[in-house]
């Protein structure tokens, strides 16, 4: 009697053909995008999304065409941080046009699909066994965000991943050509303990780790720009060395970063000359160099 592998194809269900068609749509869209970079941290609350918005703005300030994909489906924040919460997406023959943020940063976020601030993302489906299909549903939505958004030619698409380590392998399934990941931690021992695991997971995916960023490394006085202590913790650069990945730098906390994020204009646009602004711009410049990007790289 024949066994599973003796039968070619998918038994006439056409599912493999449909999955291949989905793959082709993703590939076609990615062919217009120079590099895709993900920002990741196993630990929540380390400023990952804030860094994503500011890196995107820093690259846009450098003349690059930048898009931001908010992969945090259940806690989307990119629409707020990039000032596009009131925008409507528009259907075009090429796909769904993304929202347009400062410096013409193109943004796709689940936030735009939710009817109110207090509405969580929920899916139609059987109430039992949601653990069986919810992850698959979210993967499919992420795939649609990549393939069905009319990003246009981009130098860089930055993906803001939700906290946790499990999303990166999912993202690499959708975007096998991911150029790399930026891993974020804060100085505390707790954060570094979690991010230590994040770095291990990232290495197992085979995606290049572009480097580790230490966020909230000290506190900037908004009056005199002096930097004082904030968190205790071990040397983050040592964690980078232990994993053999680049240490990209430290960014101090500045209260204006939060205000700018809430206001929808990334901090580096208006405060690039401050200690935190300079640190973020330097990280962006370093990453741009590693990625081999110039503003003329648009495909």
């Amino acid at each position: 009697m024949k066994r599973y592998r003796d039968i070619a194809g998918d038994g006439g269900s056409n599912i493999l053909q449909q999955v291949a068609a989905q793959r082709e749509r993703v590939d076609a869209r990615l062919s217009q995008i120079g590099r895709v970079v993900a920002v990741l941290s196993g630990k929540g609350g380390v400023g990952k999304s804030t860094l994503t918005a500011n890196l995107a703005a820093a690259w846009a300030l450098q003349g690059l065409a930048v898009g931001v994909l908010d992969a945090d489906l259940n806690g989307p924040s990119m629409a707020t941080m990039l000032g596009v919460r009131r925008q409507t997406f528009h259907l075009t023959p090429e796909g769904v046009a993304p929202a347009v943020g400062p410096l013409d940063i193109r943004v796709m976020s689940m936030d735009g699909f939710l009817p109110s601030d207090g509405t969580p993302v929920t899916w139609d489906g059987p109430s039992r066994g949601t653990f069986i299909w919810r992850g698959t549903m979210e993967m499919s939505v992420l795939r649609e965000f990549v393939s069905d958004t009319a990003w246009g030619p981009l130098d860089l698409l930055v993906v803001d991943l939700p906290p946790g380590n499990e999303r990166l392998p999912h993202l690499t399934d959708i975007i096998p050509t991911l150029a790399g990941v930026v891993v974020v931690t804060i100085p505390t021992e707790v954060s570094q303990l979690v991010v230590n695991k994040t770095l291990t997971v990232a290495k197992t995916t085979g995606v290049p780790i572009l480097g580790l960023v230490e966020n909230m490394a000290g506190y900037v006085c908004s009056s005199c720009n002096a930097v004082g202590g904030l968190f205790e913790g071990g040397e983050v650069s040592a964690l980078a060395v232990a994993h053999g990945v680049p240490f990209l730098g430290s960014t101090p906390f500045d209260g204006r970063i939060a205000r700018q994020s809430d206001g929808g204009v990334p901090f580096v646009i208006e405060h690039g000359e401050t200690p935190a602004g300079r640190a973020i711009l330097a990280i962006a410049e370093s990453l741009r160099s590693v990625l081999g990007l110039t503003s003329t790289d648009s495909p």
Partner: protein
Amino acid sequence: MKFLCVACDQPMVVHENLGIDQGAMTVVFACPTCEWRMGMLANPEETQMARSLGVEVAGGGESKCTFMEMIQEAMASSRPGAIAPEGADTPHWTPEATARLERVPSFVRGMLKKSIEDLAREKGVTTVDDVLMDEASSTLGM
């Protein structure tokens, strides 16, 4: 998942997809040699699993070009009009409104223009003028 006709040692093929009823999918498979048929009755969780992949058993025959189909169809609660239909009119800008927009810092001009045009569509007006700009000033925090 593949089905085999044990008597003929032949892989069965999809004969008919009877669709989804009360969340459960029914697909009829047939042996191409002896024509023996069997029904695959998936429970709602299994049906939902296939749906979550964005595929349909025996589907995909016609070329689909619906964008963000999964998001639009599967969200239990979504913002009406989150995606404006193709060809939604672009409002006309009066010279006065254009001049006001040009006084806004360049790094936010693009996003503000789109937000104001969305506001115009929301209000059902076809022209962005001083009156709408005044309203946008308060609602969009210009």
